[in-house]
C-alpha cells in the first residue's frame, strides 16, 4: 500500500515523518479500545456516563491522539472530518495551547480508518464536545507527563519547570519534548493527571486564528477529494433508475462499450455505471447509457399537495416526550395553529465524489463521508469483505450539512473499483445524481394549541409533531444506494427513532420555557415516501420555526412584547443573556419601522435543549405587490460555551443564518407521482446574492472554562422563526407553511385584503 500513499500529495502524510514506534509503518500500533467505538450517529447526546472526557472514553490511550517523533514532529489525530465548519483549525488551536507549542509545529490528521480514532460521525455539532474535549485533556496530560519526566531526569521539582514552545525550561538544562519521549511514553491510558491552564492565560485558544485550510482552497492547491489524481486513474459515472424501485429491463451494453474511451460497463442487478479513460468520455457514456437503458416499475410518489395529510394519516410510533403539571392559571383565550415544512435538500455545491482503489485484496476509498468507520462497515458488508481489508480516508468535499450523497458515492467508488483491480477509479456524481438521490430533510407537520390566562401567561400547551425519520445513515449496506440496487440487494435498516432529550423529528419540540399544563407528543412515521435522513439541525429547524412562531402568536394575543414575553418564561440565565444581547444589539426597544413594509421578528432556542444558546432578531421589508421579502438586518448572539475560535463561531452563525434564510424563503423539493422534479438548481432555487441580507451581525458570548457546546446547527431554527415573526409584524399576515415564497405571501396578503 505504501506506494499509493507516496503517489499523491493529497494522501495524509503519515509516513512523511518517522514515528518513534513503528516508523514508516502503516499498521501503526494503534491504541483503540475495541470496535465498539462508533458513536450513536445522530443521537445528539454525548455519553454523559463515560468516565473520560469526550472521545477519550472511546480511545483512552494518549498516543491515539498525540504522537511526538524523535525529530520533534508532533502529530495530532482526530476522528472528525473537516466539512467546512473549521474544526481542523479549532482542534489545532486546542492542541497547541495545551501542549504549549507553536501551532506551526503540529500536524493534524483527520478521519482515516488506518490512522485516527473511531469517533463515529462528524455530526450533531458534537466535534468540539467529543474530539475537542479529548484532544484538550490528552494534550494537557501529555504535557504533564513530559514535564514530570524532565523533572525526574533533572532531579528537580516539576513545579519549578515550565514549557515554552515544546521545550521544558526552568531547570539546570532545557529539554525538548522529543528528548523526553521514547516509543512507549505516550502509550498509556488517560488518567487525568494534566492540569489545564487558566483560560485567562490562553494565547492560542480564544483567538481568531486564521483557518489553516483556507489559503490552499483559495489558490487552487489540491484540497478536495475532487482534486485527487492518482497515476492511471480512470473516470466513472453512475446511471440511476428514473425512480426509486425501478428495474433495469433492457440495456444495450454493447452500444455503450463501443464508445470512445469506454473501458468498462459495470452492471450488477439494477446497479449501472460506466468507466472511461477520459472524464468527459465518461460523461458522454453516461448520457448514452441513459438512452440505452429501459426501466420498468418503481415506487409511486405521493401528490405533493397531499403530503402533509398523508404524513398525519400514516401509521406512527407515538411518544409523549414532555408533560408538566397543570398550573393555577385558567385559560380565557385559546390559540391553535398548524405548521408545515416540505422536503428540503442539502444540495452541496459540488456533487458527491470518491476515488476507489482495489488492489491485492485490499480496498482504499478516498471520500468526503462524515463517518469513515461507519461507512467502511457498510461498504465492507456490500462487498462481502473484511472490514480490516477496507480503508476509508476522509478528504474534504463541498459543504455537507448532513447526510448527503457522500457515503453513497464512496460505495459507488468501492463497487466499481472492485471491477477494475489495480486501477484507481474516480466517481463524480453529476448534478442530477445529487439532487435526485441524496436523502432529503423530512417533510414535517406541527399542530399546537395553547390557552392564555387572564394575566397574559400561558396556562396550558399541547404540541404534536409528525415526521419521517431524520437518520438513515449507514448502518449497513442496505442504507447505501448501491446496496439497494445490486442483484442481491440489502434491505434498509429500520430507521432510528432518535430519543429525547436530543430527539430527531422532535428535536427542540419541547419548549425551553417554563410552561404549566404542557404535553408534547412525537409522531414518528417510518413509511418514507421519499428518501430522507439527517439535514443540519434535524427536526430542530421545523420545531423552532413552529414553536417560536406560536410563542409570538401568543405574545401578540396577550398584548405583550415578544422579547419580554420570552424572558419572563426563561429560567436559565445563559438563555436570558443571549436573548438580551440580541435584543440590545438589534435595538429592539424603541424600534420603529423605518419605512412602510418593514417589520421585526425575534426568536430564541437552545439547540437540542442541551447545547448552544442562540437568539436571532431580523428586520425585513415586504413588497406587497410582489410578495418579495428582503432581509435588511439579522442580529444574533450565541453562547456555545468556551470559545476556541471566535471567528469560527461567527462564520458558522453567519452561514447558518443565511442558509436558514434560504431554506425559509425559497426551498422545497418538487415531485409528482412519477418522479422527483427538482433535478437541478432551476427546479430547486436557493438564495442568490440579490437576496443576501444587507447586514448580519453575530455576538459570540464566551464562557471561559465551560464545556464546548458546538456551534454548527444552533442558528437554523431561530432564523426561520425570526423571519416568520418579522413578516407577521410587517404585514399583519401569519404564514405557517414553509417556504415563504413570493407567491404564497402574495396570496396570503390578497386573502387578508378581501377578508
Amino acid at each position, binding site marked *: 500500500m505504501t506506494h499509493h500513499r507516496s503517489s499523491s500529495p493529497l494522501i495524509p502524510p503519515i509516513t512523511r515523518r518517522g514515528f518513534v514506534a513503528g516508523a514508516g509503518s502503516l499498521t501503526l500500533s494503534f491504541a483503540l479500545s475495541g470496535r465498539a467505538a462508533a458513536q450513536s450517529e445522530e443521537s445528539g447526546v454525548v455519553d454523559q456516563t463515560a468516565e473520560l472526557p469526550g472521545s477519550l472514553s472511546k480511545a483512552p490511550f494518549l498516543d491515539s491522539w498525540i504522537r511526538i517523533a524523535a525529530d520533534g514532529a508532533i502529530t495530532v489525530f482526530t476522528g472528525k472530518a473537516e*466539512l*467546512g465548519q473549521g474544526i481542523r483549525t479549532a482542534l489545532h488551536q486546542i492542541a497547541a495551547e495545551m501542549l504549549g507549542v507553536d501551532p506551526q509545529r503540529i500536524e493534524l490528521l483527520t478521519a482515516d480508518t488506518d490512522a485516527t480514532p473511531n469517533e463515529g460521525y462528524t455530526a450533531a455539532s458534537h466535534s468540539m464536545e467529543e474530539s475537542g474535549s479529548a484532544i484538550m485533556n490528552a494534550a494537557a496530560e501529555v504535557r504533564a507527563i513530559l514535564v514530570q519526566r524532565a523533572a525526574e531526569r533533572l532531579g528537580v521539582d516539576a513545579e519549578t519547570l515550565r514549557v515554552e514552545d515544546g521545550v521544558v525550561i526552568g531547570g539546570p538544562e532545557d529539554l525538548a519534548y522529543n528528548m523526553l519521549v521514547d516509543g512507549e511514553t505516550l502509550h498509556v491510558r488517560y488518567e487525568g493527571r494534566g492540569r489545564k491552564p487558566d483560560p485567562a492565560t490562553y494565547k492560542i485558544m480564544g483567538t*481568531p486564528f486564521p*483557518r489553516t485550510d*483556507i*489559503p*490552499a*482552497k*483559495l*489558490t*487552487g492547491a489540491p*484540497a*478536495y477529494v*475532487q*482534486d485527487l489524481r492518482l497515476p492511471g486513474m480512470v473516470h466513472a459515472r453512475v446511471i440511476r433508475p428514473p425512480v426509486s424501485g425501478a428495474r433495469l429491463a433492457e440495456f444495450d451494453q454493447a452500444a455503450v462499450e463501443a464508445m*470512445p474511451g469506454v473501458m468498462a460497463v459495470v452492471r450488477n442487478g439494477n446497479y449501472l455505471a460506466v468507466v472511461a479513460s*477520459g*472524464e*468527459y*468520455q465518461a*460523461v458522454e457514456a453516461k448520457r448514452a447509457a441513459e438512452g440505452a437503458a429501459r426501466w420498468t416499475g418503481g415506487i409511486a410518489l405521493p401528490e405533493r399537495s397531499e403530503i402533509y395529510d398523508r404524513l398525519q394519516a400514516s401509521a406512527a410510533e407515538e411518544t409523549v416526550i414532555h408533560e408538566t403539571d397543570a398550573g393555577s392559571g385558567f385559560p380565557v383565550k385559546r390559540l391553535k395553529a398548524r405548521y408545515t415544512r416540505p422536503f428540503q435538500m442539502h444540495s*452541496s*455545491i*459540488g*456533487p458527491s465524489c470518491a476515488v476507489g482503489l482495489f488492489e491485492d485484496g485490499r480496498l482504499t476509498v478516498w471520500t468526503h463521508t462524515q463517518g469513515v468507520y461507519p461507512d467502511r462497515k457498510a461498504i465492507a458488508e456490500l462487498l462481502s469483505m473484511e472490514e480490516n481489508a477496507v480503508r476509508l480516508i476522509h478528504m*474534504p*468535499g*463541498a*459543504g*455537507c450539512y448532513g447526510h448527503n450523497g457522500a457515503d453513497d458515492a464512496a460505495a459507488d467508488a468501492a463497487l466499481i473499483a472492485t471491477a477494475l483491480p489495480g486501477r484507481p477509479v474516480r466517481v*463524480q456524481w*453529476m*448534478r442530477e445524481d445529487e439532487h435526485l438521490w441524496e436523502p432529503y430533510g423530512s417533510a414535517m407537520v406541527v399542530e399546537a394549541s395553547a390557552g392564555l390566562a387572564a394575566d397574559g401567561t400561558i396556562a396550558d400547551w399541547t404540541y404534536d409533531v409528525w415526521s419521517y425519520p431524520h437518520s438513515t445513515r449507514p448502518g449497513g449496506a442496505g442504507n447505501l444506494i448501491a446496496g439497494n440496487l445490486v442483484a442481491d440487494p440489502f434491505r434498509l435498516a429500520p430507521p432510528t427513532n432518535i430519543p429525547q432529550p436530543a430527539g430527531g423529528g422532535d428535536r427542540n419540540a419541547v419548549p425551553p420555557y417554563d410552561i404549566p399544563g404542557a404535553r408534547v407528543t412525537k409522531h414518528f412515521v417510518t413509511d418514507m415516501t421519499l428518501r430522507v435522513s439527517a439535514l443540519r439541525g434535524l427536526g430542530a429547524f421545523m420545531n423552532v420555526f413552529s414553536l417560536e412562531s406560536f410563542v409570538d402568536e401568543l405574545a401578540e394575543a396577550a398584548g405583550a412584547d415578544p422579547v419580554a414575553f420570552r424572558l419572563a418564561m426563561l429560567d436559565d440565565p445563559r438563555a436570558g443573556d443571549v436573548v438580551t444581547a440580541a435584543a440590545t444589539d438589534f435595538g429592539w426597544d424603541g424600534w420603529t419601522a*423605518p419605512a412602510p413594509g418593514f417589520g421585526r421578528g425575534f426568536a430564541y432556542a437552545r439547540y437540542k435543549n442541551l447545547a448552544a444558546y442562540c437568539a436571532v432578531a431580523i428586520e425585513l*421589508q415586504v413588497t406587497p405587490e410582489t410578495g418579495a421579502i*428582503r432581509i*435588511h*438586518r439579522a442580529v444574533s448572539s450565541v453562547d456555545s460555551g468556551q470559545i476556541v475560535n471566535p*471567528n469560527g463561531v461567527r*462564520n*458558522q452563525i*453567519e*452561514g447558518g*443564518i*443565511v*442558509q436558514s*434564510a*434560504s431554506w425559509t424563503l425559497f426551498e422545497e423539493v418538487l415531485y409528482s407521482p412519477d418522479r422527483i422534479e427538482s433535478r*437541478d*438548481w*432551476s427546479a430547486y432555487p*436557493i*438564495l442568490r*446574492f*440579490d437576496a*443576501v441580507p*444587507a*447586514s*448580519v*451581525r453575530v455576538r459570540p458570548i464566551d464562557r471561559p472554562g465551560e464545556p464546548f457546546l458546538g456551534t454548527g446547527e444552533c442558528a437554523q431554527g431561530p432564523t426561520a422563526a425570526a423571519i416568520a415573526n418579522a413578516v407577521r409584524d410587517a404585514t399583519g399576515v401569519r404564514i405557517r407553511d414553509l417556504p415563504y415564497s413570493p407567491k404564497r405571501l402574495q396570496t396570503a396578503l390578497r386573502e387578508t385584503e378581501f377578508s
Partner: protein
Amino acid sequence: MVAMTVNGKSVSVDADPETPLLYVLRNELELNGAKFGCGLGQCGACTVLVDGKAAISCLLPLAALEGRAITTLEGLGTAEAPGPVQAAFIEEQAAQCGYCIPGMIMRMAGLLAETPEPDDEEIRAALQPNLCRCGTHMRILRAARRAAGRPSEEDNFAFAGSGQNVGGTSS
C-alpha cells in the same frame, strides 16, 4: 488540436473539440481552481476568465477557444503569494467549505478588470450567477469590497434598486 493560452502559458490540447473547457482544465492541464458544480451553467463554481471576462467553463467547448487567453484561479496567485482578490478573501476568512469560492474570486477578478471601483450593487450583480451553499455570502461581499479597495468593518450592503439602505442602523 486547439492552441490557447492558460495562465500566460501557451498550451495545445488534443481532445474531443466538444469537451467543455472545465474538463480540459481539470484533467489535461491538472488545474484544480475551476470546480465542477452543475455542468449546466447554473452555479458558477467553474468560473474562469476568457480574454479577461468571467465565463462559465462547464459550457464552453474546447473548439471555441482557439487563440483565447484563459485565466484560472491558479493564474491569480499561490498560497504563498496570493493575488489581490485572493488576498482579500483570505483576509476576510471568506470561506466555509470553500468549494464555490474560486468561482467567486474569478467573478470578482473579472468585474474589477472592467470596473475598478464597483459599488455594492455592481458587486451583487456580478456575483449573482454564482451560488454558495454554506451561506458565506456576507464574507464574500466583505472580501469583494476589500478587493475593490474599500474594506469595511461592518456590513451594510445596499440592495439593487433601493439606493440607501433604509434599515441600516447596524453600525
